[in-house]
Protein backbone atom coordinates (compact mmCIF):
# COMPACT_ATOMS: atom_id res chain seq x y z
CA UNK A 1 0.00 0.00 0.00
CA UNK A 2 1.35 3.39 -0.93
CA UNK A 3 1.17 6.49 1.16
CA UNK A 4 1.07 9.82 -0.58
CA UNK A 5 1.28 13.03 1.37
CA UNK A 6 0.31 16.16 -0.52
CA UNK A 7 0.98 19.73 0.57
CA UNK A 8 0.50 18.84 4.20
CA UNK A 9 0.37 21.80 6.59
CA UNK A 10 -0.40 21.81 10.29
CA UNK A 11 -0.59 25.06 12.23
CA UNK A 12 -0.34 25.41 16.00
CA UNK A 13 -1.36 28.96 16.73
CA UNK A 14 0.96 31.26 14.80
CA UNK A 15 3.48 28.49 14.17
CA UNK A 16 3.60 26.09 11.24
CA UNK A 17 4.66 22.76 12.72
CA UNK A 18 4.47 21.17 9.29
CA UNK A 19 4.76 23.45 6.31
CA UNK A 20 3.61 22.27 2.88
CA UNK A 21 5.24 18.84 2.86
CA UNK A 22 4.72 16.39 0.00
CA UNK A 23 6.18 12.92 -0.45
CA UNK A 24 5.19 9.37 -1.29
CA UNK A 25 6.17 6.01 0.13
CA UNK A 26 5.80 2.77 -1.78
CA UNK A 27 5.22 -0.78 -0.64
CA UNK A 28 8.39 -2.52 0.45
CA UNK A 29 10.12 0.73 1.23
CA UNK A 30 11.49 1.62 4.64
CA UNK A 31 11.41 5.37 4.76
CA UNK A 32 13.60 7.14 7.26
CA UNK A 33 12.03 10.30 8.53
CA UNK A 34 14.81 12.55 9.74
CA UNK A 35 14.88 15.89 11.38
CA UNK A 36 16.04 17.69 14.49
CA UNK A 37 13.75 17.74 17.50
CA UNK A 38 10.68 19.85 16.83
CA UNK A 39 11.02 19.64 13.05
CA UNK A 40 7.50 18.27 12.60
CA UNK A 41 8.19 14.53 12.31
CA UNK A 42 5.79 13.50 15.05
CA UNK A 43 3.08 15.86 13.85
CA UNK A 44 3.27 14.42 10.34
CA UNK A 45 3.02 10.91 11.73
CA UNK A 46 0.07 11.82 13.91
CA UNK A 47 -1.72 13.10 10.84
CA UNK A 48 -0.96 10.02 8.73
CA UNK A 49 -2.26 7.76 11.52
CA UNK A 50 -5.51 9.76 11.64
CA UNK A 51 -4.91 10.95 15.20
CA UNK A 52 -5.08 14.58 14.13
CA UNK A 53 -6.57 16.42 11.22
CA UNK A 54 -4.22 18.55 9.10
CA UNK A 55 -4.80 22.29 8.72
CA UNK A 56 -4.32 21.94 4.98
CA UNK A 57 -3.36 19.32 2.45
CA UNK A 58 -4.23 15.67 2.21
CA UNK A 59 -2.87 12.21 2.87
CA UNK A 60 -3.89 9.19 0.85
CA UNK A 61 -3.21 5.67 1.99
CA UNK A 62 -3.81 3.30 -0.88
CA UNK A 63 -7.19 4.41 -2.18
CA UNK A 64 -8.30 5.91 1.11
CA UNK A 65 -8.05 9.49 2.23
CA UNK A 66 -7.61 10.43 5.90
CA UNK A 67 -10.54 12.83 5.86
CA UNK A 68 -13.14 10.39 4.63
CA UNK A 69 -11.98 6.87 5.44
CA UNK A 70 -10.18 7.22 8.75
CA UNK A 71 -11.62 3.91 9.97
CA UNK A 72 -10.34 1.98 6.94
CA UNK A 73 -6.89 3.52 7.31
CA UNK A 74 -6.69 2.87 11.05
CA UNK A 75 -7.37 -0.82 10.38
CA UNK A 76 -4.36 -0.98 8.06
CA UNK A 77 -1.85 1.00 10.08
CA UNK A 78 0.28 -0.21 12.94
CA UNK A 79 1.56 2.72 14.98
CA UNK A 80 4.18 3.02 17.66
CA UNK A 81 3.86 6.55 19.09
CA UNK A 82 6.72 8.56 20.50
CA UNK A 83 7.62 7.61 24.10
CA UNK A 84 5.69 4.36 23.60
CA UNK A 85 2.69 4.95 25.87
CA UNK A 86 1.20 1.75 27.31
CA UNK A 87 -1.25 0.75 30.04
CA UNK A 88 1.25 -0.07 32.75
CA UNK A 89 -1.18 -1.93 34.98
CA UNK A 90 -2.08 -4.50 32.32
CA UNK A 91 -0.31 -7.81 31.78
CA UNK A 92 1.34 -8.11 28.36
CA UNK A 93 -0.95 -10.85 27.05
CA UNK A 94 -4.10 -9.12 28.22
CA UNK A 95 -2.99 -5.89 26.61
CA UNK A 96 -2.28 -7.53 23.27
CA UNK A 97 -5.67 -9.20 23.44
CA UNK A 98 -7.31 -5.83 24.08
CA UNK A 99 -5.60 -4.28 21.07
CA UNK A 100 -6.42 -7.25 18.85
CA UNK A 101 -10.10 -6.96 19.75
CA UNK A 102 -10.09 -3.21 19.14
CA UNK A 103 -8.60 -3.77 15.71
CA UNK A 104 -11.46 -6.11 14.93
CA UNK A 105 -9.60 -9.41 14.66
CA UNK A 106 -11.81 -12.48 14.64
CA UNK A 107 -12.04 -13.91 18.12
CA UNK A 108 -10.92 -17.38 17.07
CA UNK A 109 -7.70 -16.06 15.51
CA UNK A 110 -6.61 -13.88 18.42
CA UNK A 111 -4.75 -16.41 20.63
CA UNK A 112 -2.73 -17.63 17.67
CA UNK A 113 -1.88 -14.12 16.58
CA UNK A 114 -0.78 -13.17 20.10
CA UNK A 115 1.40 -16.25 20.24
CA UNK A 116 3.06 -15.25 17.00
CA UNK A 117 3.68 -11.68 18.18
CA UNK A 118 5.12 -12.89 21.48
CA UNK A 119 7.50 -15.09 19.52
CA UNK A 120 8.41 -12.49 16.93
CA UNK A 121 9.13 -9.80 19.50
CA UNK A 122 10.85 -12.10 21.97
CA UNK A 123 8.40 -11.60 24.81
CA UNK A 124 8.00 -15.21 25.81
CA UNK A 125 9.47 -14.92 29.31
CA UNK A 126 7.69 -11.67 30.08
CA UNK A 127 4.24 -12.32 28.67
CA UNK A 128 2.45 -12.70 32.01
CA UNK A 129 4.14 -9.76 33.69
CA UNK A 130 2.48 -6.39 34.00
CA UNK A 131 3.78 -3.90 31.47
CA UNK A 132 4.82 -1.55 34.27
CA UNK A 133 7.25 -4.18 35.57
CA UNK A 134 9.10 -4.51 32.26
CA UNK A 135 12.37 -2.82 31.37
CA UNK A 136 12.41 -0.17 28.69
CA UNK A 137 13.62 -2.55 25.98
CA UNK A 138 10.84 -5.01 26.66
CA UNK A 139 8.25 -2.26 26.75
CA UNK A 140 9.47 -1.20 23.33
CA UNK A 141 8.90 -4.74 22.14
CA UNK A 142 5.39 -4.69 23.57
CA UNK A 143 4.87 -1.43 21.68
CA UNK A 144 6.01 -3.10 18.47
CA UNK A 145 3.90 -6.18 19.15
CA UNK A 146 0.76 -4.10 19.61
CA UNK A 147 1.53 -2.19 16.41
CA UNK A 148 1.92 -5.46 14.48
CA UNK A 149 -0.84 -7.51 16.03
CA UNK A 150 -3.34 -7.04 13.22
CA UNK A 151 -0.72 -7.64 10.52
CA UNK A 152 -0.99 -4.10 9.15
CA UNK A 153 0.15 -3.21 5.66
CA UNK A 154 1.66 0.01 6.94
CA UNK A 155 3.89 0.47 9.92
CA UNK A 156 4.60 3.86 11.40
CA UNK A 157 7.23 4.00 14.11
CA UNK A 158 8.06 7.20 15.94
CA UNK A 159 11.62 6.94 17.26
CA UNK A 160 11.48 3.21 17.92
CA UNK A 161 15.01 2.86 19.28
CA UNK A 162 15.41 5.81 21.64
CA UNK A 163 16.55 4.81 25.09
CA UNK A 164 17.56 1.28 24.17
CA UNK A 165 20.98 -0.22 24.70
CA UNK A 166 23.14 -1.02 21.64
CA UNK A 167 22.18 -4.69 21.57
CA UNK A 168 18.52 -3.93 21.76
CA UNK A 169 18.88 -1.30 19.05
CA UNK A 170 20.39 -3.86 16.69
CA UNK A 171 17.65 -6.37 17.50
CA UNK A 172 14.84 -3.89 16.94
CA UNK A 173 16.43 -2.72 13.68
CA UNK A 174 16.70 -6.27 12.42
CA UNK A 175 13.11 -6.87 13.35
CA UNK A 176 12.04 -3.76 11.46
CA UNK A 177 14.05 -4.78 8.41
CA UNK A 178 12.60 -8.27 8.50
CA UNK A 179 9.05 -6.98 8.72
CA UNK A 180 9.64 -4.12 6.34
CA UNK A 181 10.38 -6.24 3.28
CA UNK A 182 6.70 -6.72 2.52
CA UNK A 183 5.17 -3.69 4.19
CA UNK A 184 5.33 0.05 3.91
CA UNK A 185 7.33 1.42 6.82
CA UNK A 186 7.89 4.98 7.97
CA UNK A 187 10.42 5.32 10.73
CA UNK A 188 11.29 8.58 12.40
CA UNK A 189 14.57 9.14 14.10
CA UNK A 190 17.27 11.70 14.69
CA UNK A 191 20.01 9.11 14.58
CA UNK A 192 21.91 9.00 11.30
CA UNK A 193 23.29 5.51 11.75
CA UNK A 194 19.76 4.26 12.04
CA UNK A 195 18.91 5.56 8.59
CA UNK A 196 22.09 4.18 7.09
CA UNK A 197 21.47 0.83 8.74
CA UNK A 198 17.78 0.29 8.09
CA UNK A 199 16.25 2.60 5.55
CA UNK A 200 16.01 2.31 1.81
CA UNK A 201 15.07 5.95 1.51
CA UNK A 202 15.34 9.01 3.67
CA UNK A 203 13.47 12.27 3.98
CA UNK A 204 14.92 15.12 5.95
CA UNK A 205 12.68 17.82 7.31
CA UNK A 206 13.67 20.94 9.14
CA UNK A 207 11.40 23.57 10.68
CA UNK A 208 8.40 21.93 9.09
CA UNK A 209 9.82 21.97 5.57
CA UNK A 210 11.11 19.14 3.43
CA UNK A 211 14.79 19.69 2.72
CA UNK A 212 15.94 16.42 1.17
CA UNK A 213 14.47 13.23 -0.26
CA UNK A 214 16.40 10.26 -1.62
CA UNK A 215 18.31 7.06 -0.87
CA UNK A 216 20.77 7.50 2.01
CA UNK A 217 23.68 6.90 -0.39
CA UNK A 218 22.41 9.47 -2.89
CA UNK A 219 21.96 12.06 -0.20
CA UNK A 220 25.47 11.36 0.94
CA UNK A 221 26.83 11.79 -2.56
CA UNK A 222 24.99 15.04 -3.07
CA UNK A 223 26.54 16.48 0.04
CA UNK A 224 29.94 15.05 -0.77
CA UNK A 225 30.79 17.37 -3.69
CA UNK A 226 34.42 17.05 -4.68
CA UNK A 227 36.81 14.40 -3.47
CA UNK A 228 38.99 14.84 -0.40
CA UNK A 229 41.99 12.58 0.23
CA UNK A 230 44.26 12.18 3.20
CA UNK A 231 47.66 11.02 2.02
CA UNK A 232 50.94 10.24 3.73
CA UNK A 233 53.93 10.27 1.40
CA UNK A 234 57.39 9.34 2.65
CA UNK A 235 60.93 9.29 1.32
CA UNK A 236 60.74 12.86 0.04
CA UNK A 237 61.14 16.45 1.19
CA UNK A 238 57.73 17.71 2.32
CA UNK A 239 58.07 21.11 0.56
CA UNK A 240 59.00 19.39 -2.68
CA UNK A 241 56.06 16.97 -2.44
CA UNK A 242 53.75 19.83 -1.57
CA UNK A 243 54.74 21.84 -4.62
CA UNK A 244 54.49 18.96 -7.02
CA UNK A 245 51.12 17.86 -5.68
CA UNK A 246 49.75 21.32 -6.27
CA UNK A 247 50.78 21.22 -9.90
CA UNK A 248 48.52 18.22 -10.60
CA UNK A 249 45.57 19.16 -12.81
CA UNK A 250 42.96 17.38 -10.73
CA UNK A 251 44.07 18.96 -7.45
CA UNK A 252 42.45 22.12 -6.22
CA UNK A 253 44.36 22.68 -3.01
CA UNK A 254 46.78 20.89 -0.74
CA UNK A 255 47.10 21.33 3.00
CA UNK A 256 49.97 20.17 5.15
CA UNK A 257 48.94 18.54 8.37
CA UNK A 258 50.88 20.46 11.03
CA UNK A 259 50.67 17.61 13.52
CA UNK A 260 52.15 14.89 11.37
CA UNK A 261 55.05 15.22 9.01
CA UNK A 262 54.58 14.21 5.38
CA UNK A 263 50.83 14.15 5.79
CA UNK A 264 48.76 16.00 3.19
CA UNK A 265 45.10 16.76 2.78
CA UNK A 266 44.25 17.01 -0.90
CA UNK A 267 41.02 18.57 -2.10
CA UNK A 268 40.08 17.53 -5.62
CA UNK A 269 38.77 19.58 -8.49
CA UNK A 270 35.10 19.05 -9.38
CA UNK A 271 34.29 15.40 -9.98
CA UNK A 272 37.69 14.18 -11.17
CA UNK A 273 39.56 11.81 -8.93
CA UNK A 274 43.19 12.63 -8.19
CA UNK A 275 44.07 9.22 -6.74
CA UNK A 276 45.78 8.03 -9.91
CA UNK A 277 47.59 11.31 -10.43
CA UNK A 278 49.01 11.21 -6.91
CA UNK A 279 50.12 7.62 -7.36
CA UNK A 280 51.86 8.29 -10.66
CA UNK A 281 53.58 11.32 -9.23
CA UNK A 282 54.97 9.23 -6.39
CA UNK A 283 56.18 6.53 -8.77
CA UNK A 284 58.01 9.08 -10.91
CA UNK A 285 59.78 10.53 -7.87
CA UNK A 286 60.37 7.27 -6.03
CA UNK A 287 58.25 8.33 -3.11
CA UNK A 288 56.30 5.84 -1.04
CA UNK A 289 52.60 6.22 -0.28
CA UNK A 290 52.03 4.75 3.15
CA UNK A 291 48.48 5.92 3.54
CA UNK A 292 45.68 7.15 1.30
CA UNK A 293 42.22 7.63 2.80
CA UNK A 294 39.27 9.08 0.94
CA UNK A 295 37.33 11.31 3.36
CA UNK A 296 33.64 10.52 3.18
CA UNK A 297 30.97 12.80 4.41
CA UNK A 298 28.68 10.89 6.71
CA UNK A 299 24.91 11.19 6.92
CA UNK A 300 25.59 13.28 9.98
CA UNK A 301 27.24 15.95 7.84
CA UNK A 302 24.41 15.79 5.33
CA UNK A 303 21.96 16.25 8.14
CA UNK A 304 23.84 19.14 9.69
CA UNK A 305 24.33 20.88 6.36
CA UNK A 306 20.65 20.69 5.56
CA UNK A 307 19.14 21.46 8.91
CA UNK A 308 21.43 24.12 10.34
CA UNK A 309 20.75 26.72 7.69
Amino acid at each position, binding site marked *: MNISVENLTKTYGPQNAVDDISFTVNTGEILGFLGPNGAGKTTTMKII*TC*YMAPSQGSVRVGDYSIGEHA*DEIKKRIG*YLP*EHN*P*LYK*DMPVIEYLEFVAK*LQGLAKSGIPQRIKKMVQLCGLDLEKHKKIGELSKGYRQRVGLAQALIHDPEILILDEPTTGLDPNQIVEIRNLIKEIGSEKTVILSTHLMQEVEATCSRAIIISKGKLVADGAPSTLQKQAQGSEVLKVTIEDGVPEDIYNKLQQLATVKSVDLDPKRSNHFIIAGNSELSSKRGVFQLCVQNNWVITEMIPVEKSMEDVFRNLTLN
Partner: protein
Amino acid sequence: MKQIWTIAIREFRAFFDSLIAYILIMVFLGLSGFFTWLYGADVFYTGQASMQPFFAIAYWTMFFFIPALTMKMLAEENNTGTIELLLTKDVSDMQVILGKFLSVMLLVLIALVFSLPYYFTIAWLGPIDHGAVWCGYLGILLMSAAYAGIGLFTSSITKNQIVAFLLALLIGMFFLIIFGTLAGNMTGVLGKIFAYLDVSGHYQSISRGVIDSRDILYFLSISALGIFMAQAVLAKRNTTN
Protein backbone atom coordinates in the same frame (compact mmCIF):
# COMPACT_ATOMS: atom_id res chain seq x y z
CA MET B 1 -20.70 -1.53 19.47
CA LYS B 2 -18.11 -4.29 19.80
CA GLN B 3 -15.41 -1.68 20.28
CA ILE B 4 -17.40 0.11 22.99
CA TRP B 5 -17.81 -3.17 24.81
CA THR B 6 -14.09 -4.02 24.50
CA ILE B 7 -13.16 -0.68 26.04
CA ALA B 8 -15.81 -0.97 28.75
CA ILE B 9 -14.55 -4.42 29.77
CA ARG B 10 -10.95 -3.18 29.96
CA GLU B 11 -11.94 -0.27 32.19
CA PHE B 12 -14.13 -2.53 34.26
CA ARG B 13 -11.24 -4.93 34.87
CA ALA B 14 -8.99 -2.01 35.74
CA PHE B 15 -11.44 -1.07 38.53
CA PHE B 16 -10.98 -4.49 40.07
CA ASP B 17 -7.23 -4.66 39.46
CA SER B 18 -6.71 -1.36 41.23
CA LEU B 19 -8.97 -2.19 44.21
CA ILE B 20 -11.16 0.81 43.41
CA ALA B 21 -14.10 -1.48 42.77
CA TYR B 22 -13.77 -3.34 46.08
CA ILE B 23 -13.39 -0.14 48.05
CA LEU B 24 -16.34 1.46 46.34
CA ILE B 25 -18.63 -1.50 46.85
CA MET B 26 -17.59 -1.97 50.46
CA VAL B 27 -17.92 1.65 51.44
CA PHE B 28 -21.17 2.01 49.56
CA LEU B 29 -22.71 -1.02 51.24
CA GLY B 30 -21.19 -0.14 54.61
CA LEU B 31 -22.40 3.45 54.64
CA SER B 32 -25.83 2.75 53.29
CA GLY B 33 -26.20 -0.31 55.53
CA PHE B 34 -25.16 1.69 58.60
CA PHE B 35 -27.80 4.32 57.97
CA THR B 36 -30.45 1.84 56.86
CA TRP B 37 -30.11 -0.48 59.84
CA LEU B 38 -28.24 1.14 62.70
CA TYR B 39 -28.24 4.88 62.90
CA GLY B 40 -30.46 7.95 62.53
CA ALA B 41 -33.76 7.47 60.76
CA ASP B 42 -33.10 3.76 60.30
CA VAL B 43 -35.71 1.10 59.63
CA PHE B 44 -36.18 0.18 63.30
CA TYR B 45 -36.42 3.79 64.46
CA THR B 46 -39.10 4.73 61.94
CA GLY B 47 -40.80 1.34 62.26
CA GLN B 48 -41.53 1.33 58.53
CA ALA B 49 -40.48 -1.24 55.95
CA SER B 50 -38.99 1.30 53.58
CA MET B 51 -35.83 1.74 51.56
CA GLN B 52 -35.98 5.53 51.88
CA PRO B 53 -32.97 5.76 54.25
CA PHE B 54 -30.96 3.68 51.79
CA PHE B 55 -31.79 5.92 48.84
CA ALA B 56 -31.17 9.07 50.86
CA ILE B 57 -27.62 7.87 51.57
CA ALA B 58 -27.02 6.64 48.02
CA TYR B 59 -27.89 10.16 46.91
CA TRP B 60 -24.71 11.38 48.63
CA THR B 61 -22.39 8.43 48.17
CA MET B 62 -22.85 8.48 44.39
CA PHE B 63 -22.07 12.17 44.38
CA PHE B 64 -18.58 11.34 45.73
CA PHE B 65 -17.98 7.97 44.16
CA ILE B 66 -18.76 8.57 40.52
CA PRO B 67 -16.18 11.38 40.16
CA ALA B 68 -13.67 9.09 41.91
CA LEU B 69 -14.32 6.49 39.22
CA THR B 70 -14.26 8.83 36.25
CA MET B 71 -11.42 11.12 37.29
CA LYS B 72 -8.64 8.97 35.85
CA MET B 73 -10.47 7.79 32.77
CA LEU B 74 -9.42 10.43 30.28
CA ALA B 75 -7.05 12.50 32.43
CA GLU B 76 -4.61 9.60 32.79
CA GLU B 77 -4.82 8.72 29.12
CA ASN B 78 -4.07 12.35 28.31
CA ASN B 79 -1.22 12.37 30.77
CA THR B 80 0.53 9.19 29.68
CA GLY B 81 -0.28 9.58 25.99
CA THR B 82 -2.16 6.29 25.77
CA ILE B 83 -5.09 8.25 24.33
CA GLU B 84 -3.06 8.53 21.13
CA LEU B 85 -2.54 4.80 21.04
CA LEU B 86 -6.22 4.20 21.62
CA LEU B 87 -7.52 6.66 19.05
CA THR B 88 -5.20 5.43 16.30
CA LYS B 89 -6.85 2.02 16.60
CA ASP B 90 -10.05 1.30 14.78
CA VAL B 91 -12.21 3.26 17.27
CA SER B 92 -13.83 6.67 17.23
CA ASP B 93 -13.64 9.28 19.98
CA MET B 94 -17.27 8.64 20.83
CA GLN B 95 -16.72 4.90 21.15
CA VAL B 96 -13.91 5.49 23.64
CA ILE B 97 -16.03 7.82 25.77
CA LEU B 98 -19.09 5.58 25.63
CA GLY B 99 -16.99 2.54 26.56
CA LYS B 100 -15.70 4.31 29.64
CA PHE B 101 -19.17 5.56 30.50
CA LEU B 102 -20.53 2.04 30.20
CA SER B 103 -17.88 0.65 32.54
CA VAL B 104 -18.89 3.13 35.27
CA MET B 105 -22.53 2.17 34.86
CA LEU B 106 -21.61 -1.51 35.06
CA LEU B 107 -19.79 -1.01 38.33
CA VAL B 108 -22.69 1.00 39.78
CA LEU B 109 -25.01 -1.79 38.70
CA ILE B 110 -22.85 -4.37 40.48
CA ALA B 111 -22.83 -2.25 43.66
CA LEU B 112 -26.60 -1.98 43.49
CA VAL B 113 -27.00 -5.73 42.97
CA PHE B 114 -25.02 -6.30 46.17
CA SER B 115 -27.44 -4.02 48.01
CA LEU B 116 -30.42 -6.19 47.03
CA PRO B 117 -30.18 -8.28 50.24
CA TYR B 118 -31.11 -5.12 52.16
CA TYR B 119 -34.23 -4.88 50.06
CA PHE B 120 -35.12 -8.54 50.51
CA THR B 121 -34.58 -8.36 54.27
CA ILE B 122 -36.74 -5.28 54.65
CA ALA B 123 -39.42 -6.86 52.48
CA TRP B 124 -39.31 -9.86 54.80
CA LEU B 125 -39.68 -7.64 57.89
CA GLY B 126 -42.83 -5.91 56.75
CA PRO B 127 -44.96 -4.75 53.84
CA ILE B 128 -42.87 -2.69 51.42
CA ASP B 129 -43.83 -0.63 48.41
CA HIS B 130 -42.05 -2.72 45.77
CA GLY B 131 -42.69 -0.23 42.97
CA ALA B 132 -41.06 2.57 44.93
CA VAL B 133 -37.95 0.44 45.56
CA TRP B 134 -37.41 -0.38 41.90
CA CYS B 135 -38.02 3.24 40.99
CA GLY B 136 -35.47 4.23 43.63
CA TYR B 137 -32.91 1.95 42.02
CA LEU B 138 -33.73 3.45 38.65
CA GLY B 139 -33.23 6.90 40.20
CA ILE B 140 -29.77 5.97 41.45
CA LEU B 141 -28.81 4.64 38.03
CA LEU B 142 -30.04 7.77 36.29
CA MET B 143 -28.29 10.03 38.76
CA SER B 144 -25.10 8.02 38.37
CA ALA B 145 -25.35 8.41 34.61
CA ALA B 146 -25.59 12.18 35.02
CA TYR B 147 -22.56 12.29 37.34
CA ALA B 148 -20.62 9.97 35.03
CA GLY B 149 -21.27 12.37 32.14
CA ILE B 150 -20.03 15.30 34.21
CA GLY B 151 -17.06 13.28 35.46
CA LEU B 152 -15.99 12.22 31.98
CA PHE B 153 -16.17 15.79 30.80
CA THR B 154 -13.99 17.11 33.64
CA SER B 155 -11.59 14.22 33.12
CA SER B 156 -11.25 15.12 29.46
CA ILE B 157 -10.14 18.70 30.02
CA THR B 158 -7.12 18.01 32.23
CA LYS B 159 -4.14 15.73 32.64
CA ASN B 160 -4.45 15.83 36.41
CA GLN B 161 -6.79 13.36 38.05
CA ILE B 162 -7.24 15.43 41.21
CA VAL B 163 -8.28 18.44 39.17
CA ALA B 164 -10.77 16.26 37.31
CA PHE B 165 -12.15 14.93 40.59
CA LEU B 166 -12.52 18.32 42.28
CA LEU B 167 -13.99 19.93 39.19
CA ALA B 168 -16.58 17.15 38.90
CA LEU B 169 -17.48 17.66 42.58
CA LEU B 170 -17.78 21.40 42.00
CA ILE B 171 -20.12 20.98 39.04
CA GLY B 172 -22.03 18.29 40.94
CA MET B 173 -22.34 20.69 43.88
CA PHE B 174 -24.20 23.13 41.64
CA PHE B 175 -26.80 20.54 40.75
CA LEU B 176 -26.97 19.12 44.27
CA ILE B 177 -27.03 22.26 46.43
CA ILE B 178 -26.49 25.59 44.75
CA PHE B 179 -29.28 25.51 42.16
CA GLY B 180 -31.69 24.39 44.89
CA THR B 181 -30.65 27.24 47.18
CA LEU B 182 -30.92 29.76 44.36
CA ALA B 183 -34.37 28.42 43.48
CA GLY B 184 -35.43 28.93 47.09
CA ASN B 185 -34.30 32.55 47.02
CA MET B 186 -35.81 33.49 43.69
CA THR B 187 -39.24 33.73 42.27
CA GLY B 188 -40.58 33.87 38.75
CA VAL B 189 -39.00 32.29 35.70
CA LEU B 190 -35.47 32.20 37.11
CA GLY B 191 -36.71 30.46 40.23
CA LYS B 192 -38.45 27.85 38.10
CA ILE B 193 -35.36 27.29 35.98
CA PHE B 194 -33.16 26.78 39.02
CA ALA B 195 -35.75 24.52 40.61
CA TYR B 196 -35.74 22.41 37.45
CA LEU B 197 -31.95 22.23 37.43
CA ASP B 198 -31.80 21.04 41.04
CA VAL B 199 -31.23 17.29 41.35
CA SER B 200 -33.08 16.63 44.58
CA GLY B 201 -36.60 17.28 43.29
CA HIS B 202 -36.15 14.90 40.37
CA TYR B 203 -34.44 12.25 42.45
CA GLN B 204 -37.00 12.37 45.24
CA SER B 205 -39.97 12.10 42.96
CA ILE B 206 -38.45 9.06 41.24
CA SER B 207 -37.42 7.37 44.49
CA ARG B 208 -40.93 7.88 45.87
CA GLY B 209 -42.16 5.82 42.95
CA VAL B 210 -43.33 8.49 40.53
CA ILE B 211 -41.80 8.03 37.11
CA ASP B 212 -42.14 11.20 35.12
CA SER B 213 -40.58 11.43 31.68
CA ARG B 214 -39.36 14.94 32.56
CA ASP B 215 -37.27 13.56 35.42
CA ILE B 216 -35.78 10.86 33.23
CA LEU B 217 -35.11 13.39 30.49
CA TYR B 218 -33.42 15.64 33.06
CA PHE B 219 -30.85 13.04 34.10
CA LEU B 220 -30.27 11.72 30.61
CA SER B 221 -29.72 15.18 29.18
CA ILE B 222 -27.07 16.04 31.81
CA SER B 223 -25.40 12.75 31.03
CA ALA B 224 -25.54 13.30 27.27
CA LEU B 225 -24.34 16.87 27.58
CA GLY B 226 -21.29 15.70 29.58
CA ILE B 227 -20.52 13.01 27.01
CA PHE B 228 -20.81 15.35 24.05
CA MET B 229 -18.69 17.98 25.76
CA ALA B 230 -16.03 15.38 26.49
CA GLN B 231 -16.11 14.42 22.81
CA ALA B 232 -15.77 18.07 21.80
CA VAL B 233 -12.75 18.43 24.08
CA LEU B 234 -11.12 15.34 22.58
CA ALA B 235 -11.79 16.64 19.07
CA LYS B 236 -9.92 19.84 19.90
CA ARG B 237 -6.66 18.16 18.92
CA ASN B 238 -7.83 18.40 15.30
CA THR B 239 -7.94 22.18 15.29
CA THR B 240 -5.27 23.45 17.65
CA ASN B 241 -3.00 22.01 20.25
